[in-house]
């Protein structure tokens, strides 16, 4: 009796293990792809969530900064060595992001919220159209960074090296960022500003510096994200930034806007779900799903997973 029972148990164990292995075997490619793209969304989403946290602004142009850093890479690599191009791309993204803030957002800081959001949309429109002009609407092929694009085999799945690098790099960068926010003076200033903009400016915090630093961090991460993203999906056209940008924003909302870890968790959830949905054959709705998720989270928990509730002052 006893032995048969244990045999039974071990059989169900193996059966179960087989099913799990089988499932993993089928789904591994999707999960891997999801994790990779999730990490890349995360790097973009941080820029959204930090800017929103401080300025209460959906920086619609962020996705286009991401696209532009990819585009600049294409042009730089033709004349410069790779390592230098990478550095310059990050520098470019930072300059572009802070310039946008300076020119298009700072003058409107006291204007109604809608004006600054419209300005953001206008900048996005301009960046896209300018890219359209420069590229002539043609898709540019991203330069191959050979070790990132090397094919590797994990279990049943074959994928690019970048798929494995992305989550690791993302988590390391996020860890550094969280430490920065928690343990440095500028990080403290950021937290203070995001909690109460006016009071912190009265307390002598240099708001402009905080905002500039926020944009620097956001854009630098977005440009790193662009290197990873475009190494994986090697075509860039003027609209390449729009969809990742929107999804990253949804990720930021999902995780609770203003929260960096939240944005990262949200991005991974969206990346993985999106690929699983494609794998399940619902390819038509893989993009729409992101927005369904957004609407569900806004209905159920408007503050997102890790967001804090804000009360209006009356």
């Amino acid at each position, binding site marked *: 009796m006893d032995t048969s029972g244990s045999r039974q148990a071990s059989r169900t164990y193996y059966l179960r293990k087989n099913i799990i292995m089988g499932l993993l075997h089928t789904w591994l490619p999707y999960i891997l792809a999801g994790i990779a793209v999730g990490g890349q969304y995360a790097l973009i989403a941080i820029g959204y969530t930090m800017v*929103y946290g401080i300025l*209460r*602004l*959906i920086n619609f142009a962020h996705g286009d900064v991401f696209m532009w850093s990819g585009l600049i890479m294409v042009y730089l690599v033709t004349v410069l060595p790779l390592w230098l191009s990478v550095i310059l791309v990050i520098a470019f993204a930072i300059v572009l992001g802070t310039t946008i803030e300076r*020119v*298009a957002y700072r*003058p*409107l800081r006291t*204007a109604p*919220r*809608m*004006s600054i*959001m*419209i*300005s953001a*949309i*206008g*900048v*996005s*429109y*301009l960046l*896209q*159209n*300018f890219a*359209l*002009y*420069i590229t*002539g*609407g043609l898709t540019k092929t991203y330069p191959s960074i050979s070790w990132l694009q090397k094919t590797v085999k994990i279990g049943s799945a074959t994928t690019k090296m970048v798929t494995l690098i992305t989550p690791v790099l993302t988590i390391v960068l996020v860890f550094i960022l969280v430490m*920065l926010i*928690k*343990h*440095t*003076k*500028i*990080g*403290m200033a950021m937290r203070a500003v995001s909690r109460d903009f006016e009071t912190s400016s009265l307390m*002598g915090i240099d708001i402009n510096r905080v905002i500039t*630093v926020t944009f620097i961090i956001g854009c630098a991460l977005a440009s790193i994200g662009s290197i990873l993203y475009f190494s994986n999906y090697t075509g860039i056209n003027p609209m390449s930034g*729009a969809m990742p940008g*929107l999804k990253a*924003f*949804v990720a930021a*909302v999902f995780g609770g806007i203003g929260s960096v870890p939240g944005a990262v968790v949200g991005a991974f959830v969206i990346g993985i779900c999106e690929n699983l949905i494609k794998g399940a054959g619902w390819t*038509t*709705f893989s*993009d*729409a799903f*992101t*927005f*369904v998720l*957004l*609407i569900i989270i*806004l*209905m159920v928990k*408007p503050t997102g997973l890790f967001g804090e509730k804000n009360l*209006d002052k*009356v």
Partner: protein
Amino acid sequence: MDTRLDNKKKIALSAACLILFMVFVYFGDIMIRPGSSMKMLITVIEKGSIFALVAASMNLLNGFTGLFSLGQAGFMLIGAYTYAIFTIPADSHDKVYQYFNGGIIKWSIVEILESKLGLAGHYLGMLIPMLMAGLLVALIGFLIGIPVLRLKSDYLAIATLGFAEIIRAFFQWNTLGPLTNGSNVLRKYTTYKNAIFPVMIAGISIAIILLLINSTYGRAFRAIRDDEIAAEAMGINLFKHKEMSFVISSFFAGISGALLAMFQTTISATPFTTVMTYEILLIVVIGGIGSITGSVIGAFLFTAASEWWLRGLDAGKWMGISSSLMRPGFRKVVFAILIMLIVLFYSRGIMGDKEFSWDGFFAWCKSRPAAVKAWPEKRKASRAAKKEARAVKSAAKARAKQAKEEKEARKSSGEGLFTPLVLADHVVVFEKEGRNG
């Protein structure tokens, strides 16, 4: 001399202008031969009036109710499809729905009514599907509104944007093919024959929007825009009124979608992207957020500039200037820069939040000669003011610089951007005490 007119004269004047315009459009469309460049003017008026309507409907939300909604393109899409699906002639179904065995709806409202009522039936057959388009979109707007209108402004923007994307995917879904033709274009449906049709429909719709805005409900909407909390304290049910504004705006977006379908003669879901919504929004901004006349003017300017006047910028020759810079895409860059200039330096747009009025118009005309005369002096004055401002600014800068230097001097410990918090805390405390003392 008082240039104010009494109300009756004003109405007569407006009516005369409108009738003149209608006559021009009607005969213009008939008489101008296709090869003439004036034909382009008629095309611009057609498309402009359609976008004027959708911009007005967006303005009702964004400018008058303070709801930042970005779902307009999605609503237009539903309107366009609804109209098209119900007016494709019966014998064209097999061609249009070539991959879906002729679709599931095998009749056309236009044909049914036309066979019964003749020409009147033809027009009724166009109006009814258009009304259906509006009502369906209003219904969908109502349903979407229930969850999203409880959200704060930015979340509302992104949620409506999301819904528009979902709608687009839905209409392209192959499973719905027998109804929507999936990814393929719908065509052959009944369209208008003369440009006067969209102009009239859009005109009537915009007039209704104007009447609404000037009614007690319009006042309630504006109250919500100005201050939600105060509006609520004045007994205005926020949700009910927001939903009302949203539904009405959706209705007119649906109508304009139907008109757009007629204008384009074919319809597919692909162009109804967020970019389209952004363009509608930019029309509203150019015209002035909170001004329906502004939206109308903005729509015509936007359409004319992007479809007609600036086209030369793409072709390498524009107004006699030719440059190697002018290659495809240049038009859009120039256009985007113009829009950014308006957003940054002229954020009130053309009309601000004022509506057109004859009094204002005459006063403006009358003031022109004086304004032109006064212009040099005004410029001188503004220059002087600017100079002064510059002086003040530089003085302030100098002061700030001094203060900064002092501060730097105080920071003997070499405290930087990323100084650990422990040290930073001490400095903060020290500074506070210093200030108090």
